[in-house]
């Protein structure tokens, strides 16, 4: 009975959390489009500022990580391909794995660590300092003022970062291919282009947009839910990271299944 009750309570909490995320996402979308129809200026200045933080400043570390992941993939694939005498397929293996899965996923994990946590910490600190209350008393919608610029920045930056991560991942694979698999840089790129269909890249980009939505909503929701006291900000930040990683993987699974069954079914 106790176990059933615990599972039931956890399920209700989980659904309530997802409901909160959905409500926040709906409110953010409504605020974003509402501004367009009301001919009020969208907060592009703040969105550009956020975009710099989300995207441009993440490029160096994202480049390194993606490059290394591409190399690791090439090395791992080469183990088996060498046994089968099919080392020339290393370029295809890296290209498909990176564009369909690891590029978007590694980008999302990095953005969760850098940006999702920062969203939660920023909004959590504002909550503790009564700045969010101050916005409400000034008749300013905190969602429009704080979440919409982050949302716009993420919607634009996640696909851009993912394309960059895909490119760097392929370059990482190319380093192995050129030094150990008999490719030149030109033939490696050519083999990569041959292996990729547009659908592979689009699949990854669709996922990256969905990851961006999840990371923004979880980070902002955790920030808004911050309790009183500075230690609560730390808790919100941790929750934002853990929950974002979990939901990103879940969304990844759902979309991978949709794409798989959409093609084979």
């Amino acid at each position, binding site marked *: 009975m106790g176990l059933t009750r615990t599972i039931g309570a956890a399920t209700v909490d989980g659904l309530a959390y997802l409901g909160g995320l959905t409500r926040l996402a709906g409110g953010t979308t409504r605020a974003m489009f509402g501004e367009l129809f009301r001919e009020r200026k969208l907060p592009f200045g703040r969105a550009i500022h956020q975009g710099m933080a989300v995207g441009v400043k993440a490029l160096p570390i994202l480049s390194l990580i993606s490059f290394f992941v591409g190399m690791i993939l090439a090395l791992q694939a080469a183990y088996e391909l060498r046994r089968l005498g099919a080392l020339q397929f290393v370029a295809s293996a890296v290209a498909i794995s990176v564009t369909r899965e690891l590029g978007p996923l590694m980008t999302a994990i990095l953005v969760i660590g850098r940006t999702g946590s920062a969203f939660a910490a920023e909004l959590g*600190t*504002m909550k503790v*300092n*009564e*700045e969010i*209350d*101050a916005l*409400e*008393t*000034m*008749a*300013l919608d905190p969602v429009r003022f704080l979440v919409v610029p982050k949302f716009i920045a993420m919607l634009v930056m996640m696909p851009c970062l993912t394309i960059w991560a895909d490119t760097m991942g392929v370059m990482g694979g190319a380093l192995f291919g050129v030094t150990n698999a008999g490719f030149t840089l030109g033939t490696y790129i050519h083999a990569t282009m041959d292996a990729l269909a547009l659908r592979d890249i689009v699949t990854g980009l669709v996922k990256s947009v969905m990851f961006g939505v999840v990371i923004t909503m979880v980070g902002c929701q955790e920030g808004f839910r911050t309790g009183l006291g500075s230690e609560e900000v730390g808790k919100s930040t941790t929750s934002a990271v853990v929950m974002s990683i979990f939901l990103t993987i879940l969304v990844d699974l759902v979309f991978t299944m949709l794409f798989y069954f959409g093609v084979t079914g």
Partner: protein
Amino acid sequence: MNEQRKMVPDAKPEAIEVRNLRVAYGDREILHGVSFEVRTGETMVILGGSGSGKSTLLRTLAGLEQPSGGEIRIRGEDLQTLSRGGWHELRTRMGISFQSGALFGSMTVGENVALPLREHTKLDESTIDIMVRLKLEQVGLRGYEDYFPAQLSGGMKKRAAVARAMAMDPEILLFDEPSAGLDPIIAAGVDELLLKLKEAFKITIVVVTHELASAFLIADRMILVDKGCIVAVGTPAEMKASTQPRVRQFLDRVPEQEMAQEMDYLQILTGDVVPLRR
């Protein structure tokens, strides 16, 4: 309440009317049926000890907490039945200065003050700049437009918060603990600022504080809140002359007696029992 009204014969229409207000956090009721009114142009000070419910009362007046019962009318408009547009309009006519100042740390002082003007008016940037300078001058912060809140002292932050609250020329100003955390000289400066604003703009001001010296200096009338109930309402002179034990204890700064029983202490903490000790 009618008796209180009779005490001041030239009573103007009420800016704020609160009737039987109840506010609860979950199962725990913080305000147990509070009633009072604030007249247009007067400075009402809400006094009370820590945990008495005075900040909750102010937050409820500002629309940041939902009442579980009762009624609040601001300039005759019932907050419970106010539409979204009504709330929006009302909030542009009210200013609030929070205990911490609540200035946006990522914006300069000038941008903080300009924010409501940029969002709610169609004024051009040069006019907004002039208004920001005027507002900052009113609170003695001329020349601080480009400073960030982190670069200001505690008293200056409070003044900047007042300037932001005044940006839209509100009819009602709410202050949460304006002197908290300030040294006596800076606190006296903030009190002087409130008196100056009241004199110059005839604004209705509600101040929540537990600083007695400050309260007696700025108040036209005051309320003493204890454990979620109003125990006394009156002018500073009436409060000083009051013989109510709870008022005397608060004004004479008599410490609370040690709790003889564990349950008494628990009841104080939970605010479950609200007897007026006589």
